[in-house]
């Protein structure tokens, strides 16, 4: 704590020093900025932040240098605690997902999502239900029926505990009135390989986490948790494209939509001018070919949200998630 308050103090010092030079309406970073990544190196959020960094560098969108630091300890808690400690510092930009509001529900933390200064949501990552290539389950209904016949016999793997994957599994259980056994792994990649090896019966990976396995005929997607199928695109395997995968709701699995936003925040109490600057910057990033390429390749849905729109999205998502957390008894506060 001592370190953090000191960092905050230091940040405050520079802030007050540069205040006179800074007009109220515009703000611009004058010293190196830090992108705080709430996942380990190589994780989804890490690739997200580094893609943004690369696009910024390529198009010279920032006058100062960018340092990316990974603070993925405690499923990302570390990064937010760090951001919380840098109160008011507009030079620290926090990259995350919906973990900004799910983590404070699951574990005791010293921040709430309302404390953070929202900057932008740049994309939504989709979720799919995957089974092994030679699995007897052809549709979501098959899987649910199997679970209904023998509760707990169907094993679904996912990344981490009380995180997006397990929340989705809980949603499915509630919607279909069945019980699965959830196995937490360290990440989606591992859950994908465990499925390919037949150690679990299904997983809820993002498209980009299992595309290699699908093309290699190890696993196949059963349905997508979306209101309509993914937009048409190139074929992924020899016969199918992402758009050929039906929605889960159409297969008798009544979960209409589930997705993970890719979010960006500033520490609590960051000046409004800085918030506006970063929102504008990331809007420009979202128009670069590098960004579009990344979104397309990872089969995410590009959708830029900021300001009130983003706040409303967070409120809605937080409410829905809290409902599940309370029902499952996962809340810590």
């Amino acid at each position, binding site marked *: 704590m001592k370190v953090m308050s000191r960092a905050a103090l*230091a940040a405050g010092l520079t802030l007050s020093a540069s205040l006179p030079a800074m007009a109220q309406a515009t703000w611009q970073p004058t010293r190196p900025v830090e992108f705080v990544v709430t996942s380990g190196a190589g994780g989804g959020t890490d690739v997200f932040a580094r893609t943004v960094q690369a696009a910024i560098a390529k198009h010279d969108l920032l006058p100062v240098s960018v340092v990316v630091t990974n603070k993925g300890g405690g499923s990302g808690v570390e990064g937010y605690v760090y951001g919380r400690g840098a109160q008011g510092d507009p030079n620290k930009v926090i990259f995350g997902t919906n973990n900004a509001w799910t983590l404070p529900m699951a574990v005791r933390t010293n921040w709430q999502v309302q404390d953070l200064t929202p900057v932008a949501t740049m994309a939504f990552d989709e979720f799919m239900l995957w089974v092994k290539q030679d699995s007897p389950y052809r549709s979501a209904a098959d899987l649910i029926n199997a679970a209904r016949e023998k509760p707990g016999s169907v094993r679904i793997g996912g990344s981490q505990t009380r995180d997006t994957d397990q929340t989705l599994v809980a949603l499915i259980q509630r919607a279909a009135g069945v019980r699965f*056994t959830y196995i937490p792994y360290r990440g989606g990649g591992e859950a994908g390989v465990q499925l390919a090896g037949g150690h679990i019966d299904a997983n809820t990976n993002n498209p980009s986490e299992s595309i290699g396995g699908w093309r290699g005929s190890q696993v196949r997607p059963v349905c997508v948790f979306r209101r309509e199928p993914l937009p048409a695109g190139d074929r992924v395997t020899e016969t199918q494209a992402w758009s050929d995968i039906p929605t889960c709701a159409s297969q008798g699995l009544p979960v209409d939509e589930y997705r993970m936003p890719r979010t960006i925040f500033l520490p609590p109490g960051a000046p409004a001018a800085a918030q506006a600057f970063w929102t504008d910057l990331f809007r420009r990033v979202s128009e670069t070919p590098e960004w579009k390429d990344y979104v397309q390749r990872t089969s995410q849905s590009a959708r830029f949200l900021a300001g009130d729109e983003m706040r409303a999205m967070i409120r809605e998502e937080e409410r829905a998630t809290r409902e599940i957390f309370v029902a499952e008894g996962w809340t810590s506060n």
Partner: protein
Amino acid sequence: MLTRFHLELIFAACVFAIGAVGLYGSLELDTGWASDGPQAGFFPFRVALILMAGAVLVAIQAVRARAKLRPIAITDRAGMRRILWFGLPIIGMVALAQWLGLYVAMAVYLLATIRLGGRRPWHTSLGVAAGVTLVTFVVFEWWFQVPLLKGPLEIMLGLA
């Protein structure tokens, strides 16, 4: 003078304390074995108990063998002095780093230890202190973009 006997007891006390703290921490968790296997506190609880029991056993062994352990000095007076002369500045550097950043602390530490501890001439001490700090700065901040702890000085110079 610090003897082997005393150090055995001191370290056993540390281990016991670590175990006790661990025990306290693990009791906040479920320490049982449920239908889905061991719970979060299962292993921490047992490891804490092993540490506490082990510490007690080591202490008992030490007391029983005290006649043999008492005459063994951990280090002589000169050795002790060298350790303190070497160790205390490290603690000073770490404390200073929390406040002034790693670079300033590093430079001050190197200058002080090489000049005062090592009794090297001023130009050598200054050269090493400035050189190492500068090389570290260039390698970490510029080449590899790994930011180290910075303090007010770097902020004043516009480096942080």
